[in-house]
């Protein structure tokens, strides 16, 4: 390692010395614009979005956002306004320096002092004639933070060191490692947990685990630091592991010193299982059967049964339809409701057949033909929309987010702020969609067709797109820059699909596993669930690796992975916290309670009250989780946050709690109507010959999936005795049950 040399030589031009043989460390060495001046502008925040990096610059001085366009920056710094920012005669007097040192008023304040490293490098650069980016400069090919995966006790400090690996030219075997700490911009994923100053000094201020991030040029390095809550807890203090998931989670909790809540009761388990897996409440009869079952393996048996229910298929079709944005276009729709329904039905078939995720995705990705013969083209109809050139449409960012859990949309306009993705990466990726062509027709006039090849003339052109900023022609490349070969005569999406579903593709498999895990556990191993990037590592790497490998080696069997999760002790922990795990929201020390999703909640009220919701245009009795089109008008579904599927972002589905929701639950006419409907549960129950106690039991089972406890029985019996009207009393009891946290939440 060459850190020592570097420390001696930084003044005279860090990179120049690297490959310049004997001359290094001489005072004449010229600092590199790319490797020193630009990183300094980033390191000191000059080119960030709030300062000169924003679209209009700041007070007339503009820089490219975090340095995505070095050639423009060079011009702006050295040439704009008659070169007023630089003084070649007296470099020390340059506006660039005086502003940065706060010698003259500067909104950004004083960034560094005279004779500091950055000052000396900039002076040297100015004295050397301010060279811009050079063609044959060494290239940064890797970046790492030292140390990594380290335990820090509360209050402990640690200086980070950042090492860049350079090659003297592209694909060169000659590599050099250089300490670039002083040129690095630092950040930390969770700043409430660790403080990280501009010089890379880390301090643990709260327990937990977080990632330190180092940004240098177009690379990002990440290192994980863990601060235990308390002293490690013996593994024996955790429930006995059922499978590898438990091993991984309990090991993590043990190292962090977080205790786990107890394993939940059968009543809680059965309700949780049904709601999570099938989006539906268990029927009273199912609850009774389960509770009465003496088989020690009954949880496993019921898990298998629930995964075979039609509701499981319905509910997972809904999840997939969200991911693939199945909706009617607002303007100039070419599929009609029929098209939306046929894609939905196609997805339903895939779920029913437990179609491997990679195959399902491949089918969608390379789909061609008409809406009638291949409903999967609906994905492209929605994401390409009316854009004639598909590679200029939202499909590029949507595919990255839906299939790869990766957000590259920002790289369309500037380099990704938190990841290595550059504008070039974005446009190279867009090239995979450059051969798509639609023949769009109004559904009344004909059928819309997706072709994967251009017309004959255009097909002769080379495959790729023009980068709009640089004008450079770029051939297609995946976002991880894997070298793959595309051929102008075949549909480039085939190569994309092959790369994507390659067993080594971490983001493709990781993205789905993360979604599945989040669905059942409430919080993704990576959050947000569709924002996978090296600077946002999973909260449990061992578990991440296990789930991903399991998914890949078991041929993307979604049900298999689901079974593993549901059978784990971790999934079956209580939702209440105990002393020591109250603040944990990331390591799965207890089940995280969450409000039922819009469709699930509406169905739960409908089945409990025995009154189906009427959805106009759909057959009577259809359940909310079965409705294909999110355009269906429904106050309930809107106010409880269903996904409109307008974007690829999983955040469109909202689990938030709002005041209008509570008004609707407490006081909505719909709920009054359901309670008093002549064909509803309540009216029938009142005519029933069973005792009051049995009727109350039934209401509890219908709503909370459990029997009332003695205290509840007593309160209810007392109030019932005083009640003037039995019907009103039952209405009030039913209303009360539907308005509990216990009903509205999966817990």
């Amino acid at each position, binding site marked *: 390692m060459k850190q020592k040399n570097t420390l001696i030589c930084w003044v005279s031009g860090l990179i120049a010395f690297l490959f310049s043989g004997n001359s290094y460390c001489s005072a004449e060495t010229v600092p590199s614009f790319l490797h020193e001046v630009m990183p300094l502008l980033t390191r000191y925040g000059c080119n960030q979005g709030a300062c000169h990096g924003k679209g209009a610059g700041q007070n007339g001085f503009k820089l490219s956002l975090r340095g995505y366009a070095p050639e423009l920056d060079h011009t702006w710094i050295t040439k704009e306004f008659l070169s007023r920012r630089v003084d070649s005669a007296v470099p020390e007097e340059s506006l660039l320096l005086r502003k940065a040192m706060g010698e003259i008023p500067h909104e950004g304040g004083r960034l560094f002092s005279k004779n500091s490293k950055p000052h000396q490098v900039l002076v040297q650069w100015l004295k050397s004639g301010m060279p811009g980016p050079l063609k044959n400069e060494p290239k940064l090919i890797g970046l790492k933070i030292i140390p990594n995966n380290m335990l820090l006790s509360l209050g402990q400090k640690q200086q980070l060191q950042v090492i860049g690996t350079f090659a003297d030219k592209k694909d060169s075997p000659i590599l050099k490692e250089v300490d670039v700490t002083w040129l690095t911009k630092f950040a930390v994923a969770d700043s409430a947990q660790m403080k990280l100053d501009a010089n890379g000094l880390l301090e643990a201020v709260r327990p937990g685990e977080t990632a330190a991030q180092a940004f240098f040029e177009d690379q990002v390095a990440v290192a994980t630091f863990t601060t235990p809550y308390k002293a490690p807890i013996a593994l024996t203090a955790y429930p006995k592991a059922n499978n590898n998931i438990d091993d991984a989670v309990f090991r993590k909790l043990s190292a962090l010193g977080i205790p786990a809540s107890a394993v939940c009761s059968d009543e809680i388990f059965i309700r949780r299982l049904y709601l999570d897996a099938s989006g539906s409440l268990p029927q009273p009869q199912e609850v009774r059967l389960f509770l009465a079952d003496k088989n020690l393996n009954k949880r496993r048996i019921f898990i298998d049964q629930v995964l075979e229910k039609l509701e499981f298929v319905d509910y997972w079709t809904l999840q997939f339809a969200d991911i693939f944005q199945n909706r009617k276009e607002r303007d100039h729709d070419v599929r009609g409701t029929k098209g939306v329904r046929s894609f939905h039905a196609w997805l339903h078939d895939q779920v029913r057949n437990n179609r491997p995720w990679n195959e399902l995705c491949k089918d969608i990705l390379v789909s061609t033909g008409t809406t009638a013969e291949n409903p999967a083209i609906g994905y492209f109809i929605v994401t390409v929309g009316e854009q004639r050139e598909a590679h200029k449409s939202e499909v590029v960012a949507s595919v990255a987010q839906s299939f790869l859990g990766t957000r590259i949309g920002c790289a369309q306009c500037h380099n990704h702020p938190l990841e290595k993705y550059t504008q070039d990466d974005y446009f190279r990726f867009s090239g995979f969609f450059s051969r798509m062509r639609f023949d769009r027709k109004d559904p009344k006039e004909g059928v819309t067709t997706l072709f994967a090849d251009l017309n004959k003339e255009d097909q002769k052109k080379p495959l790729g797109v023009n980068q709009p900023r640089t004008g450079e022609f770029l051939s297609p490349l995946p976002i991880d820059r894997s070298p793959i070969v595309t051929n102008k005569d075949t549909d480039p999406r085939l190569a994309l699909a092959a790369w994507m579903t390659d067993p080594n593709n971490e983001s493709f498999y990781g993205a789905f596993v993360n979604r599945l895990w989040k669905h059942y556990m409430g919080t993704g191993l990576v959050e947000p669930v569709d924002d996978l990037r090296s600077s946002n590592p999973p909260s449990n790497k061992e578990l991440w690796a296990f789930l991903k490998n399991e998914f890949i080696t078991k041929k993307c069997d979604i049900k298999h992975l689901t079974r593993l999760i549901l059978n784990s002790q971790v999934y079956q922990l209580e939702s209440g916290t105990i002393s020591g795990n109250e603040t944990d929201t990331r390591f799965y020390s207890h089940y995280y309670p969450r409000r039922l999703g819009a469709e699930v909640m509406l169905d739960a009220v409908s089945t409990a009250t025995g009154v189906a919701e009427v959805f106009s245009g759909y057959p009577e009795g259809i359940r909310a989780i079965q409705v294909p089109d999110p355009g269906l008008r429904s106050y309930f579904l809107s106010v409880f946050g269903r996904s409109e599927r307008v974007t690829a972002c999983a955040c469109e589905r909202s689990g938030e709690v709002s005041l209008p929701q509570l008004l609707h639950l407490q*006081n909505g006419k719909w709920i009054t109507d359901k309670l008093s409907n002549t064909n509803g549960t309540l009216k029938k129950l009142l005519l029933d010959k069973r005792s009051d106690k049995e009727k109350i039991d039934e209401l509890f089972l219908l709503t909370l999936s459990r029997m009332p406890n003695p205290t509840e029985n007593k309160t209810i019996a007392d109030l019932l005795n005083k009640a003037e009207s039995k019907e009103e009393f039952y209405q009030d009891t039913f209303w009360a049950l539907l308005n509990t946290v216990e009903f509205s939440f999966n817990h």
Partner: protein
Amino acid sequence: MFDIKFGSREKRCDGVGRRNFLRVGSLAGLSLASVLQMEAKAKSNKARAKSVILVYLGGGLTHHDSFDLKPDAPEEIRGKYKPIETVVPGLRIGELLPNMAKVMDKIALVRSGAHNNDHHETATNWVMSGRFGTAFGDFPAIGAVVAHETGLAGSIPPYVAVPKNPSFTWELGKSAYLGGRFESFKAGDPNDASYKVQDLSPSEQLSIARVERRGTLRQAVDQLAGKLDNAEQVKTFGEFQQRAAELVLSSKARSAFSIDRESEKLRDRYGRNTFGQSCLLARRLVEHEVRFVTVNYGGWDHHAKIFESCDKKLPEFDKGLSALIEDLHLRGLMDNTLLAVFGEFGRSAKINKDAGRDHWGQAASLLFAGAGVKPGLVLGATDKLGSFVTRRPVSPADVAYTILDSLGIDPRKQLLSPDGRPIEILDLGETVRELYA
């Protein structure tokens, strides 16, 4: 100047540069000392307003055809409307705003709203929050900040949107990191024949005894709630459960939203359309001490056939807004109500091939009134084509700063994000001092 177009979705254009600003600054006779003085003054946080009404013109009002006419510009810029005189000597506005012409002496016109973003979602979140962020809304809307700072005391929500929040493809102006508790309460369309706020009036006649019994029963069977209250969502659910119950029972809340208690004559004066009735409802809400009301009046995104649309839309706008201004005055509400009128941007000078005007962040006309705002003021100006601001640019941060400051909320206060990170309400901006004589 410099103009890059990246893709089709977003344009970025340069704003008023340092060079231009220096030139403008010296013309206007501003010295650094006076600027600093103004800054110092801006720090005072004495409340002038109790409530704010924001009339939000989503899509972007065409300033060329409303408050910033350019009669001497070439035809493809000046458009079809003629300027008319107003009650303020020398101030002329568009001919489709005759009622506004009569009340210009009660409000301040700022012709120099400026930023550099031409993207609906990004710009809307920017002007509604005062901070630049992504299109998805990184910062809470001013109304959500007001709700957060003034608290949720009383039965009526402190932040109400009539009929709802702005949206193009997704909802904008949300509470961002402040969370769902401070989201605007949506009042619905008060122009509906049988207007009622969704679920506010009791859906059935319940005796007090039954209401109480329901409460008792719910508490008796909901012991789980207490065990889970470490979960943020469960806590919020419990809080809103309480607030919803109070809201339904509160006669004050019912009264606030009872637009049918207004006379037919007054309702007609405001205009029998969603915008007119929304303005009227906003006045009622302010009377009932709602702190921040957004009247969301979209549909100004006239890329095509702008004059056909404005022929219909400007009179509706003219009628509703002038009625609101008059009414606030008559009732003495103007003293402690700040009225602000703006959209996410203005529109481009040159009429395009579809007879429309396109997005234009560089220049927009904004209106302010009440709570000490100098009536009859005209501040700022654009160039002879109405493209760029030549005098006193006012940024989204300045507007948000002015509003918060007016309510006595320190715009530089640090709020906490859910993960405990301190975030300044506004990182930039200052009160537009000229608005206060």
